[in-house]
């Protein structure tokens, strides 16, 4: 077999999308009643669940208390059934620790932590099904969950991965496309500020700018969808509150 042709001459990708098109994004907020905030988000075949507790007083070791702002605690995990082969995924392996750290940094940049000094916000994210772009999907899901919890943020944080094939940036990679050199960006779309930028492949600097541009556009696309989800959810919630 001759490998996969990631981008055809006609400009279609493996799954029929064009280079700049995102996968279908579907989301629901407030899926769990007991948590302070929760959301479920699908981006193509990647599905994630995010749950937020807080802000509440510090639990566990008090030494982590920050006196001017809230401490953010993130935990990322993958379900055993999230990939084609079932695999036990212990907590605290290197990959998920790293991912947790990335999420933490992202949300420290977005949440207005100075409003809640000496308190703690917990964000738990679980990948239910994985098909590429795990980090971005987690960020997007967690954003909705934080909004659901009513925690003030500077802006939505929207994330998206971008890959580089045949001199063309591809937005929102699926698993099969993730073999190419790619980068993930988490963006605060309104100000265009970058909350996190991650890339662990080699890429020539000439291409970086084009790739960043594509990533920002894609993130703005995501933010539009998320905004719609939030408005929809608010409308439903408002109707529910009025009716009874």
């Amino acid at each position, binding site marked *: 077999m001759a490998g996969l042709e990631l981008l055809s001459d006609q400009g*279609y990708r493996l799954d*029929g*999308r064009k280079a700049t098109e995102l*996968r279908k994004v579907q989301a629901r907020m407030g899926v769990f009643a007991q948590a302070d905030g929760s959301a479920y988000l699908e981006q193509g075949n990647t599905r994630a669940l995010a749950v937020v507790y807080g802000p509440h007083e510090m639990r566990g070791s008090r030494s982590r208390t920050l006196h001017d702002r809230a401490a953010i605690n993130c935990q990322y995990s993958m379900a055993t059934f999230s990939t*084609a082969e079932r695999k036990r995924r212990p907590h605290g392996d290197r990959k998920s620790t790293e991912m947790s750290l990335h999420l933490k940094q992202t949300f420290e940049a977005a949440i207005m932590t100075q409003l809640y000094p000496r308190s703690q916000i917990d964000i738990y994210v679980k990948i239910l099904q994985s*098909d590429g772009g795990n980090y971005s999907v987690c960020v997007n899901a967690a954003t909705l969950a934080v909004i659901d919890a009513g925690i003030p943020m500077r802006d939505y944080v929207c994330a998206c991965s971008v890959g580089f094939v045949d001199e063309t940036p591809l937005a929102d990679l*699926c698993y*099969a496309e993730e073999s190419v050199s790619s980068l993930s960006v988490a963006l605060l779309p309104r100000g265009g500020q970058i909350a996190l930028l991650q890339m662990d492949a080699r*890429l020539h600097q*000439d291409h970086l700018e084009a790739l960043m541009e594509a990533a920002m556009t894609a993130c703005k696309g995501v933010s539009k969808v998320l905004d719609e989800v939030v408005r929809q959810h608010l409308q439903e919630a408002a109707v529910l509150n009025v009716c009874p």
Partner: protein
Amino acid sequence: MLKSKTFVKKTRSGGVMKIVREHYLRDDIWCGSEVCTGCKQESTVLQKDACIESNLCSYPHYLIPDTNVVLHQIDVLEDPVIRNVIILQTVLQEVRHRSAPIYKRVKDMIHEKEKHFYTFTNEHHRETFIEREPGETANDRNDRAIRVSAKWYSQHLKPFEADTEGLKVVLLTNDLRNKQTAEESGFRMSSATVFIISGEEYIKSLIANPELVDRLALSNDEKVTNEITSSKLLYPEHLPLSRIQAGIKSGSFLQGTFRASRDNYLEATVFVQGEGEDGTEVLLQGLQNLNRAVHQDVVAVQLLPRNQWVAPSSVVLQDEGAAKDDNVDEEEEENTLKESATESVRKPTGKVVGIIKRNWRPFCGMLNVSQIKESTRHLFTPADRRIPRIRIETRQAATLAGQRIMVAIDGWPKDSRYPNGHFVRSLGSAGEKETEEEVLLLEHDVPHQAFSQAVLSFLPKMPWAITPEEMAKRMDLRHLTVCSVDPPGCTDIDDALHCRELENGNLEVGVHIADVSHFIRPGNALDKEAANRGTTVYLCGKRIDMVPELLSSNLCSLRSNVERLAFSCIWEMNHKAEILSTKFTKSIINSKASLTYAEAQMRIDDTSMNDEITTSLRGLNKLAKILKRQRIEKGALTLSSLEVRFHMDSETHDPIELQTKELMETNSMVEEFMLLANISVAQKIYDEFSECALLRKHPAPPPSNYDILLKAAKSKNVEIHTDSAKALADSLDGARVKDFPYFNTLLRILATRCMMQAVYFCSGMDSDFHHYGLASPIYTHFTSPIRRYADIIVHRLLAVAIGADSTYADLMDKHKQSALCNNLNYRHKMAQYAQRSSVAFHTQLFFKSRGILNEEGFVLFVRKNAIIVLIPKFGLEGTVFFDSKDKTAPNIVFDEEGPTLTVEQHTFHIFDKVKVTISLDASNIQHQKIRMALTEPVIPGVSVPVPDVEPQAKKPKLDR
């Protein structure tokens, strides 16, 4: 922007892995037809007036070929007559999996505007996507997908039928079952009509182009009649791929590239890549064991038990039996092969059990017209002797006889002696210079078409001048006395030199190389074309440029008295040629003189001349001698090969005189400084880019390569040491025999044949950088960017290293570099072969007009039934055979240890002086060859009488 209307999940199981992929269906995929007004397409590909004159389809129509039609009839599809074809994505994907070369050809056609080929992405179109049904095979699903798309097209175009004189869609399929299913499923009943025609019928129906029929490939269902094939199976069945793979994994089969022997059509070797560097060669003997493998195929072989191993025969055998009686011949010939050999020389022997990948390409050659007058089946003999003859079907045999033609192989059934193929195109009549040159270039895969418009568009606009910005960036060296020294008639001058004394008494030496990378920017069409061509190919009297003429002979060429951009390498040296400092810079130079080697030599020798150029040359010459001595002390080899020059008639361009090339001091002077520049640059770019420097290495040959050299030297009581390059160089220098001044040169010629090929490689992919021949730890090519692409890359790397230019992604990617190196190595090899063939062809032309000559020569090799003789005067090598089919063979005794060959009473050793007659044998017009026959020593019944000195009108028939 419309997005993902429907959402379908596609599950594909390959092996155990379950892969789940999304599959978006779109409704913004347009039909690509000029006619359609419903689609919101920006540009259309398919014409409104899509007429191909055909008996079957008298209306305008679009063709939809299915996968098998594309795979088998690609030669027909490539004809300019065939236009307005819809290639479905399903078809394209299937072709991609089945055959990479055909996929590339299809893609080329799609890109060609005049062909009007449109790719319809049917798998992502909402109305043409289908899901595989339970119980349906993948192939059936794809066939159905093709039918559904064809139907969709015809329905889609239905409303416009009126304006287009009944535009229709025609589905081409060779598969009878597919055709039936299509008809059953109501294609004709449906409101729009799709016509289903088999590919062959369609092509046969084309009115204007009867010759296209010859290009039709024979399909499987059209059984080749038993007229030509006996009912008995000639070959064992090939194993299926799954079993081959299992066998390779378990170690019972070996995978390797099949290499047919040039001299013996019943013999071949398979080179099996072992782990690491080493590989083994497996010998194959006999048609049964070769089992339909063709040169360059990737095959699976099974080793025979050790007691059946054989030694490679030294018999030269050519497949010359006519098609009819070949079976008888072969048995005899195969028997001659099976001679008992001593245990020591036996090699691992095996048989082909299956073909992993065919490497068929169109072959050049000539038609052997069948004796039966009306017959449409003829045998085709390829120019390359390693390719078997091919049976083709043509109705124009009479016109094709005597022409060089191209033929492609379609298949090789197991009951057929020869593979079946079809005619592709004619190149012109044989023996003509243009035709032969074309054949030569095609056979060696040398890209030789004129440069395309896209490429030419990246050339600088004339009149060209150096801009002030450029002037500011570069070092101005116009005041220096720079001159170039090249062979006579050279128009692509890529190097120039200067040497001057500095105030501190040291010498400043500069090598200035044409700054080609300034004109060829990375990534554009010009660059891609040059990268593909890899090198300029020099044939006798013709040059196939790597870059367009404007650059190669004008803007880049460092001609005298014009300002040119250069990349300079400047050293400060003391009078002992020790380098004190090295500097690289982009510069502007103004060469003061373009000299030939002879002119430069004259200036140096003429003591009355004392101008600046001459003093500069003398300085260079003095330093070069020291450099050369140092290099040889380090163990660099001086090897020898005879190169010949033709003096061409200025009008007919026929060779009128042959001359071996002379080497002068100035040749070596220029060479020394080029070597020095190359080594300095190699070190610099490697220091700067340890991962992606493009370097050149020359591996040390394995000791066994030297066997022939050692044996040959021993026969003259000379000892050769081969432990290291230095030892070899020293013992070669010491090897002299009294009264035999040519011995040393002959020995060096033999030594050259023992060497490995030098290759380009990327420093990040290899750890051994040593250049054996030059005895340098690191080496690259920097000095000829006009004619070698490797040098352009090196220029770019060096420019980045000194901050004169910026990098780009591919330059820093070691995998891409490595792929580029592979291409460059391949092109260089092919260019070399093409060059040699061109020399051989011109030698033939030369001897054609000379009649029979009697010349002195030396025995270079001894074979079982022949000796190979080198004639120093012409640098010509030829074979003298001692046995022939139609005559009683003389008593021949071959001794492998010597090696010697005793014919009747006379014993031939390597290096023996003999006299031979040379004549052109034109009996086989395709392989005209130089024939040699022995005149001295006189062996009764073997040697021929000394011919008259005057050229004879009729050549006597010579023994062979």
